[in-house]
C-alpha cells in the first residue's frame, strides 16, 4: 500500500539527521525513521563529533554518516548533509525534492511524514511544514504547534506550561515557523535562501528561517496530524553545546543572543530602536528574576547575550542586507504571528498565578503504589460531590467571618474616609508623597529635619502603590479590616495547636477583639496594629527556636524579613524578640561550655545572629538612629499618646484614649495564671505571657516624651500586651482543647471551678466589650474626615510657616502646646521625623505668653514664621498678652481661632546686604536657585544642618550659624547661587538598605533550578 502511494507520489524526501552525543535517543529516532508509513527516500546522518556511541549506532542502522568537527553548527551540518546528497542525486526536479530535518532527540511517529506530505498536496505556496511536537517521555505534554518570537526575544509557542494535549490545537495552521526538529523544507527554497543562517549555530535558526520564508512570499504550516516526540536535549541542558559561537557551554546565553539577533535582523528598520530598548529592559528584568531565584549564571547570560550582539554590529548589518535581497513583501506580514503584548502579559500572569496556586494548593498526590488502579472511565462516571451552601453555614469560620464583618462595619461607622486622630496622622494624597517622604533627605516638618524616615513609611508606600496610590484608602481599609486580619492571623497560628475549629475560631475572635486590639484600632496605633497582625505569624516559629540549627537558611532569612517588617513598625516589638533571641543565645553559649559541641553552637548562634541583626540592617539608618536615642526604642510610630495606669495594664488593658473601660475585664490574665500551673505546653506560653505582662506593667509606670513632643506621656505598652495576649490565647486553646471530655470523665474538683470561672469571665467580657464597642467605642479618637486644624486660608500659600498654639485642659491642668506647621496638618511620618524643640522659639513664646516678649515677633519672623494661629478654645489671658505685644497684627478671629500676622520679613530665605537692608528671596520647598544683589548674608529659616550648601559660580559658600542657631551663608559678591540640601548621605543609606533588602529577599526565596537539574521526565 505504501509502495503504491509512493509510486503515485513523485516527491522525493531526504531526511538529514544531525547527531551530537545523542546515543540516548538515537535508537528510537532511527527506528521511527525506518517505520515511516511513507518511506524516506534518502537518509543522511551528519555527526558533529559525538563522543558517545552515536556514529556506531547510525552505521549499524546502515545510515550514511558524515562526520564533522565537534564545533560544527546545526546549519552548517545541514549544509554538509545536503552536499552529501549530491552523491545520490537523481533527475527529480528540486521543486519536488523535500528535506526533512531530524534531530537526534526527535522521534517522528510512523505517519508523520505521510501527514506532512498530504498537507502539502494542495498547498503549493507552502514551502515549510512541521509536525506537532510532544514530550519525549510524556506523550501528552504538548511542546510546540508552530513557533514564533515575542517582542522581547523569547521563544513563543503560545502554550501554557506543561499543557496537556487534548487535540485543542489540532489542525493545519499557518505559523511563522516550525521547529527544525521535524521541519520539512522544499530543497530549492532552502538552497535559494542559503540554508540556515550560519550566525545562528544553534537555537532560533528555525524562527529566523521561517521569517525569511514568510517575507519572501511563501507559507509555513504546522500539521498536527504529524506528530514527533522531542527530548529538547540541547535546550534542557542534557548535553554539552560545543558550537563555535557559544561561550562556556551556555545554552541560555546562545538562545537569548540568537533571539535578539533574529528580531533585529528581520524587523523593519523603524522598529529597531524600540526593539533594542525592549530587548534590553526585558533582559534586565529577566536577569533580576534569575537573581531572585538565585541563578546568577542565567542572570549573566541574559545581560551577556545583549552585550555580545552589541559588540558585533557588523554581523547584524550584514544579516539585514542579506535578508533585503530575498524580501518580496513587507516585514509586517509576520506581525500576525508575533504575539501581542497582551497575550504575553496574559500568559505570564497565568503562569505566575498557576505557580502560586500550586504552591498554596498543591495538587493531591496520587498514591502511585496503590494496588487499586482507578479506571478513568469509572472516574468519569462518579458524580461530582455537590457543594451544599447549608453545610457551609454550619462552619465556624463562615458564620464567624460574616458576623465579624457586620460587627466591624458597625464599630467603624465613623471611620469611613480619610482617618486621623489619636496617634494617627492624616494620610497624604498619594503613594508618591509617601515615597518622596521616604527618600527625601530633608523634611519640611516644623523647623525642618534631616532625621531618617522610618521604614514603615516605605512599607506603607509600597502597599499604597498596590492600592492604586491611595494611601488614605489603604489606611481606612487596614483599620476597618483589622479585626478580620487579626482573626486570620491568630487562626493560622492556632491551627497548629488544635483541630477544634470552633475553639480556635472563638479564641481568634477573642484575640481580634481583645482590649489591646480594640484600644489599638480606636487610637490609631499603626505600630501595635502591625505587631498584633504579624506576631502570631512569627509566634508560629518561636517553638522551633529549640531546633534552630536544623532550620534552613532560606527559612531564617524569610523569618528575618517578617521580623524586619515588624521592626519597621514597632521597635518595642523588636526589643521583645531581641530579648528572647539573646536569652536563647546565652543559653546556647552556656550549653556549649558544658558539652563542647562547637559545630552545634556555631550552627545555632549564626542563625540566631542572623535573626537578631538582619531586621536592624533592613531598617537602616533609622534603627541605628534609634539606638543612638534609646528612648525611641520604647516608642511607636505616630504621635506619642499616653497609655493607661499599671493596674489597668495588669488586667491586659493598655489604657489611654480609645481603650475599653476597666470593667470590661478580659479573661486573659486569669488564663495566664491558671495555665502557668498546667502540665501541658500551655505552661511555656503562660510563662512567656506573664513575663511580657510584667514588662508591660513596669513600662506603664514611666513617662516619656518624644516624636516632636516635649510633653511627657505615660508609656504606651500595647506592644508588650500584644505578646502577653498572644501567649494567653495560645495557652487557653491548649488547655481548653478537649477539656470538656476530660472534665466529664473526672470527679468534681478545682479544675471544674477554674473552667467555670474562665467561661464566666469570657461571657462577661464578650457582653461588655460588644456593648461598649458598638456604643461608646465607636466614637473613637480616630475618625474620618475631621475638620483640619489649620484654616484653609493659611494652607493656601505653599511653604508658609504658621505657628499653631493650642490650649487644652485635663484634670484641672491647663496646658498650652505649639508647633510649626507648613501648608497642612501633620501627615503620616511627620511625628517620627519631627525635630527637637528650638530653644529660641521656646523662649520667644514663653515671653510672649507672659507679656514680656517685646522681641518675640522678631524671633518668630526670623524663623520664617508668618502667622500665629491660636486654635479655639482660646485662652483669653494669652490672647490679651499677644494683643498687648507689638509685632502681632490680628488678621482674623473665626470659630476656628485667632490668627495674627507676624510683622517683619517672615520668609524662608532672607538676604541682608552690607547696609543692613533685608529682603526675601524666592525659594522652593527645600532648595532654591536665585541671585544676590551684592555682598551680604543669606539666612535660611530652617534648622541648622551641615548638609545645607550654597554654590555660587561653582564654589561652595561657607556655612555658619547665626545668633538664633539658623544656617547662614556670607556672600562676598553678587550673582546667582543655588541652595541645596545635600542628600548624598541619605541616598547612600537608601542604596545600602535596598542592597540588604534584595539580598535578604533573594536569600529567602526558594532557589530556582537550572534546567540541567530538572529531570528530563519533568521537562518533556
Amino acid at each position, binding site marked *: 500500500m505504501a509502495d503504491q502511494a509512493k509510486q503515485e507520489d513523485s516527491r522525493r524526501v531526504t531526511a538529514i539527521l544531525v547527531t551530537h552525543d545523542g546515543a540516548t535517543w538515537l535508537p528510537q529516532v532511527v527506528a521511527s525513521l525506518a517505520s515511516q508509513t511513507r518511506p524516506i527516500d534518502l537518509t543522511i546522518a551528519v555527526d558533529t563529533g559525538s563522543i558517545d556511541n552515536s556514529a556506531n549506532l547510525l552505521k549499524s542502522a546502515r545510515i550514511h554518516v558524515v562526520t564533522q568537527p565537534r564545533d560544527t553548527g546545526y546549519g552548517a551540518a545541514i549544509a554538509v548533509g545536503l552536499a552529501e546528497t549530491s552523491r545520490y542525486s537523481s533527475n527529480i526536479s528540486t521543486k519536488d525534492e523535500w528535506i526533512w530535518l531530524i534531530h537526534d532527540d526527535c522521534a517522528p511517529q510512523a505517519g508523520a511524514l505521510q501527514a506532512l506530505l498530504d498537507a502539502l498536496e494542495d498547498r503549493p505556496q507552502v514551502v515549510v511544514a512541521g509536525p506537532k511536537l510532544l514530550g519525549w517521555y510524556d506523550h501528552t505534554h504538548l511542546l510546540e504547534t508552530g513557533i514564533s518570537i515575542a517582542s522581547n526575544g523569547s521563544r513563543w509557542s503560545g502554550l501554557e506550561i506543561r499543557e496537556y494535549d487534548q487535540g485543542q490545537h489540532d489542525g493545519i495552521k499557518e505559523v511563522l515557523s516550525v521547529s527544525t526538529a521535524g521541519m520539512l523544507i522544499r530543497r530549492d527554497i532552502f538552497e535559494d535562501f542559503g540554508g540556515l543562517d550560519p550566525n545562528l549555530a544553534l537555537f532560533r535558526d528555525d524562527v529566523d528561517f521561517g521569517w525569511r520564508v514568510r517575507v519572501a512570499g511563501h507559507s509555513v504550516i504546522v500539521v498536527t496530524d504529524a506528530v514527533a516526540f522531542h527530548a529538547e536535549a540541547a535546550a534542557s541542558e542534557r548535553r554539552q553545546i560545543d558550537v563555535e559561537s557559544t561561550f562556556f557551554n551556555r545554552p541560555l546565553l546562545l538562545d537569548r543572543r540568537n533571539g535578539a539577533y533574529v528580531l533585529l535582523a528581520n524587523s523593519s528598520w523603524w522598529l529597531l530602536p524600540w526593539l533594542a530598548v525592549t530587548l534590553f529592559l526585558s533582559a534586565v528584568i529577566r536577569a533580576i528574576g534569575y537573581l531572585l531565584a538565585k541563578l546568577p549564571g542565567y542572570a549573566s547570560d541574559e545581560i551577556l547575550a545583549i552585550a555580545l550582539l552589541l559588540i558585533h554590529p557588523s554581523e547584524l548589518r550584514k544579516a539585514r542586507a542579506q535578508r533585503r535581497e530575498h524580501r518580496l513583501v513587507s516585514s509586517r506580514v509576520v506581525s500576525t504571528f508575533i504575539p501581542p503584548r497582551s497575550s504575553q502579559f496574559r500568559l505570564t500572569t497565568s503562569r505566575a498565578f498557576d505557580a502560586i496556586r500550586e504552591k498554596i494548593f498543591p495538587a493531591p498526590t496520587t498514591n502511585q503504589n496503590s494496588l487499586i488502579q482507578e479506571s478513568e472511565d469509572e472516574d468519569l462516571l462518579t458524580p461530582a460531590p455537590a457543594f451544599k451552601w447549608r453545610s457551609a453555614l454550619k462552619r465556624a469560620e463562615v458564620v464567624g467571618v460574616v458576623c465579624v464583618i457586620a460587627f466591624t462595619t458597625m464599630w467603624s461607622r465613623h471611620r469611613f474616609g480619610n482617618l486621623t486622630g489619636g496617634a494617627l496622622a492624616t494620610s497624604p494624597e498619594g503613594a508618591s508623597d509617601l515615597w518622596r517622604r521616604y527618600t527625601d533627605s530633608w523634611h519640611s516638618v516644623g523647623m525642618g529635619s534631616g532625621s531618617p524616615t522610618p521604614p514603615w513609611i516605605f512599607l506603607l508606600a509600597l502597599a499604597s502603590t498596590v492600592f492604586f496610590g491611595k494611601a488614605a484608602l489603604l489606611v481606612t481599609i487596614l483599620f476597618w479590616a483589622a479585626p478580620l486580619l487579626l482573626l486570620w492571623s491568630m487562626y493560622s497560628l492556632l491551627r497548629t495547636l488544635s483541630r477544634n475549629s470552633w475553639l480556635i475560631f472563638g479564641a481568634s475572635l477573642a484575640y481580634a477583639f481583645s482590649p489591646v486590639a480594640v484600644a489599638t484600632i480606636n487610637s490609631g496605633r499603626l505600630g501595635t496594629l502591625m505587631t498584633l497582625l504579624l506576631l502570631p505569624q512569627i509566634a508560629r516559629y518561636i517553638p522551633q527556636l529549640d531546633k534552630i540549627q536544623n532550620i534552613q537558611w532560606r527559612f531564617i532569612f524569610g523569618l528575618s524579613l517578617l521580623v524586619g517588617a515588624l521592626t519597621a513598625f514597632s521597635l518595642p516589638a523588636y526589643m521583645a524578640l531581641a530579648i528572647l533571641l539573646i536569652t536563647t543565645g546565652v543559653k546556647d553559649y552556656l550549653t556549649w561550655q558544658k558539652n563542647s559541641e562547637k559545630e552545634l553552637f556555631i550552627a545555632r548562634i549564626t542563625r540566631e545572629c542572623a535573626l537578631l541583626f538582619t531586621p536592624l540592617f533592613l531598617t537602616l539608618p533609622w534603627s541605628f538612629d534609634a539606638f543612638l536615642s534609646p528612648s525611641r526604642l520604647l516608642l511607636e510610630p505616630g504621635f506619642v499618646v499616653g497609655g493607661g495606669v499599671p493596674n489597668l495594664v495588669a488586667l491586659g488593658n493598655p489604657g489611654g484614649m480609645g481603650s475599653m473601660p476597666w470593667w470590661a475585664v478580659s479573661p486573659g490574665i486569669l488564663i495566664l495564671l491558671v495555665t502557668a500551673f498546667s502540665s501541658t505546653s500551655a505552661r511555656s506560653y503562660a510563662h512567656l505571657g506573664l*513575663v511580657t505582662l510584667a514588662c508591660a506593667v513596669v513600662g506603664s509606670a514611666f513617662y516619656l516624651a518624644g516624636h516632636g513632643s516635649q510633653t511627657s506621656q505615660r508609656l504606651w505598652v500595647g506592644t508588650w500586651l500584644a505578646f502577653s495576649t498572644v501567649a494567653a490565647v495560645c495557652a487557653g486553646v491548649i488547655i481548653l482543647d478537649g477539656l470538656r471530655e476530660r472534665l466529664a470523665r473526672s470527679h468534681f474538683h478545682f479544675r471544674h471551678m477554674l473552667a467555670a470561672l474562665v467561661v464566666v469571665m469570657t461571657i462577661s467580657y464578650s457582653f461588655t466589650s460588644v456593648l461598649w464597642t458598638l456604643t461608646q467605642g465607636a466614637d473613637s479618637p480616630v475618625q474620618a474626615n475631621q475638620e483640619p486644624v489649620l484654616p484653609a486660608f493659611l494652607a493656601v500659600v505653599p511653604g508658609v510657616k504658621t505657628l499653631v498654639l493650642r490650649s487644652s485642659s485635663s484634670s484641672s491642668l491647663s496646658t498650652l502646646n505649639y508647633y510649626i506647621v507648613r501648608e497642612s*496638618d501633620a501627615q503620616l511620618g511627620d511625628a517620627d521625623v519631627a525635630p527637637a524643640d528650638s530653644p529660641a522659639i521656646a523662649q520667644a513664646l514663653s515671653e510672649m505668653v507672659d507679656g514680656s516678649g517685646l522681641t518675640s515677633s522678631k524671633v518668630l519672623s526670623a524663623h520664617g514664621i508668618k502667622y500665629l494661629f491660636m486654635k479655639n478654645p482660646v485662652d483669653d489671658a494669652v*490672647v490679651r498678652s499677644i494683643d498687648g505685644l507689638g509685632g502681632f497684627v490680628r488678621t482674623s478671629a473665626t470659630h476656628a481661632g485667632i490668627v495674627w500676622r507676624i510683622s517683619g520679613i517672615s520668609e524662608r530665605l532672607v538676604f541682608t546686604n552690607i547696609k543692613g537692608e533685608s529682603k526675601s528671596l524666592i525659594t522652593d520647598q527645600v532648595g532654591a536657585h536665585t541671585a544676590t544683589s551684592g555682598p551680604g548674608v543669606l539666612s535660611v529659616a530652617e534648622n541648622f544642618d551641615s548638609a545645607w550648601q550654597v554654590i555660587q559660580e561653582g564654589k561652595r559658600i561657607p556655612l555658619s550659624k547665626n545668633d538664633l542657631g539658623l544656617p547662614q551663608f556670607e556672600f562676598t559678591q553678587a550673582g546667582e547661587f543655588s541652595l541645596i540640601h545635600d542628600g548624598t548621605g541619605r541616598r547612600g543609606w537608601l542604596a545600602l538598605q535596598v542592597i540588604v533588602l534584595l539580598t535578604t529577599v533573594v536569600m529567602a526565596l526558594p532557589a530556582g533550578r537550572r534546567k540541567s537539574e530538572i529531570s528530563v521526565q519533568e521537562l518533556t
Partner: protein
Amino acid sequence: MKNRSSLALIVLLATTLAFANLVSASVNSNRFSESFPASACPSSSSGMTSTVSTGNKSTPFRRVAGKLSSFKPVQSSRYAIGADPILLDSADLTAVVWQSFSGVWGGSTICVSPEGEQWFIGGTGDVTSKGRLQLVNSGLSDATVDISVWSEGGEQSGKSLTIKANSAVFVRLDSLAPGQKSLALKVSPRSGRVSAFMLDERGKGLHSLGGDVINPVNSAERELVIPAVPQQVGKEKTPLHLLRVLVPGDIDANIQVDLVSNDGTFTPLGLDNRLLKHGTVNDIALNPTVNAQVFALHIHSDQPIVAGVMSSLTFAGHREFLWSSSAPQLTDMSLAINGLDPMLIFTGDLIKLKIETRLSDGKTKNSTVSGADVALWNAPKDAVKIRISAVSPGIFAAGIISSASGIGYFPLMTGSSLTRAAIPISNIRVINR
C-alpha cells in the same frame, strides 16, 4: 517543686505591679508663668482732675500714648493723671483713682487690668447727658471693641470700634443711645488689651446736675451684692435711690432684693419676687426708711443680671449723685489709698477680717473688723495703703470717698489679678485633628 518557676513569675508580676504603683505618679511637664498684668487708670479731661494713689513712689508706670513702651517709677505716691491714661505696674496693689470736677462733683474707681468684658450699669443718653465711655488700648497692637447698649427701650444698636495701639478714645453716651434715659453698657474687646471706664456726668444747660464714675462689673450673676449705698441721714429731703437692673439674657427674671443695714435686714416693698423684663433696663425707685449711714443690697435672681444703684445727694450745697455697683466676694487684697481717707463698708452675714494699714510715716497699724450684716471702717488720715487679710467667707465690700467736690464709690476688688499662663510646650500633636 515543678511549679516553682510559675510561682516565681506570679510573684514577679505582683512585685512589678506594686513597684509600678509606687513609682507611677502623674508627671506634669507643664511650666507656668505667673504675673500681675499692668492696670490702666483713666485719664482726666478738660476741667477735671484725676489723681491715682499709687501707694509707692517706685511703682512703675507709663503713659499709654507715650512714645516709650518701657515703664519708669511714678516718683509720687499720688500721681495726677493728665490727658493720657496711664498704665501702672503695681502688681497686687490696687490703685484707687479719684476724679473730680472742682466744686461740682467727685467720683472714684480703681485701676484695672484689661478684662474680657466689662458691664457698666448707669448713665443716660438724654439731653442732660455729658457722660462718656473711655476705652484704653494699652497693647501694642490695634484693638477691636464691641459696645452693646441697653436702655429702657430695649437693646440698642451697638457699636464696634477699632482703637489704635497705645491709645484711648472717648465715646459719648448720648451718641450710643440718643434720647434714652437709662443705660446699661457692655464692652467686649474682640482683640487687644482694652480697659474701659465710664463717667456719668449730667447737666442742664450750664447748670451741673452732678456726676460720678461708674465702676465696671465683670459679668452678669444670679446673686449680686451692692455693698454700699450711702444715705444722707438727717437731711430734710429723703434721699432718692434708683435701682437699675438689666436682665441681659433671653428670659425674664424674678428678683428679690434684701436691704441690709445696721438697722436690720428687710425686703423693700415691691421688691419681693419682682418680675423684670429681659432685654430692657429697669429702673426701680428705692426710698427705704433707714437710719443707717449706709446700707447694702443683696439681690437674688433666677436669671443672670447686672445692677447698680444711683443715689441722689445734696453735697456742699450742690446736687450730686453716686453710682454704687455690685462687688465680687472680698478676698485678701491690698489697696493704695493715700490722700483719699476712704470709708470701707463690709457686708455679710458674719464679718471678720484684718486690716493692716501702712501710714505715711512708715508705721503699720493693725485692726480687726468684725460684725454682722454691715460693718464700717474708716481709714486713718495718713494711711498710704492697706492690706486686707483673713477675710471670712461671704463678705462683700466697697469704699466711699468724700471730698469737697463730691462723693465717690469704688468696689473692693483687685484691679489686677494674678494671671497664671501655661508656658507653651512644643508638641506636634497640636497639628493633628
